[in-house]
């Protein structure tokens, strides 16, 4: 089972590049701000659909945003 810290992501960095708030991103992928917050904090691993939506918003490949932690 995936534990909470098996995956890291660069959402925060990508958001900063695009000058977006958590709420902006949340609105664009139709989830709550809590969800984005939890993903950034590494507390929640998003579904594939949500991950793909986030990658599309930033216009980069999925693996540029989401990577497995070393050791998996």
């Amino acid at each position, binding site marked *: 089972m995936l534990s909470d810290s098996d995956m890291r992501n660069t959402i925060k960095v990508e958001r900063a590049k695009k000058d977006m708030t958590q709420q902006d991103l949340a609105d664009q992928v139709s*989830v709550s*701000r*809590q969800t984005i*917050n939890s*993903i950034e904090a590494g507390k*929640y691993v*998003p579904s594939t659909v949500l991950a793909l939506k986030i990658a599309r918003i930033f216009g980069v490949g999925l693996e540029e945003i989401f990577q497995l932690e070393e050791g998996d």
Partner: protein
Amino acid sequence: MLTKILLSHRYQLIGWILFLPFSTLLFAENYLSFSFSWLEFEFSREDGLFGNPMENFTNELALIGVFISLFLIAFSREKEEDEYIQKLRLDSLLLACYVNTFILILGTLLFYSFGYLEFMGYNMFTIQLIFIARFRWVLYKQQKSMLAL
């Protein structure tokens, strides 16, 4: 998707509004022998144990009212119901079932006779109550940690 089997968000408020009067009625009926006289009907479920064919349904009304209001509170959609909220929902439901089993075992060891009956009576509500408390608590903590950012 789980959302399809959840009630719409407005039922949550209705649930909270109904919960207080019905739970008050339940306690009043149980401990203060309160009953509505208009709920007395001629009805014999097991014939003539006490020779009185009249039966008062205040207790049934209160129990069903509490069940329904807890159901509405627990299974209404959140304003923004998304996959993360659904994960919290399922986690909370699982936790509630675990705790319920634990309480059930503990109660079976500790109570017997009418005490056990009373315990089982309250135990009917533990899954719903623990679910609601845990789910609400996690959402509240989330909100607070987000505001602190």
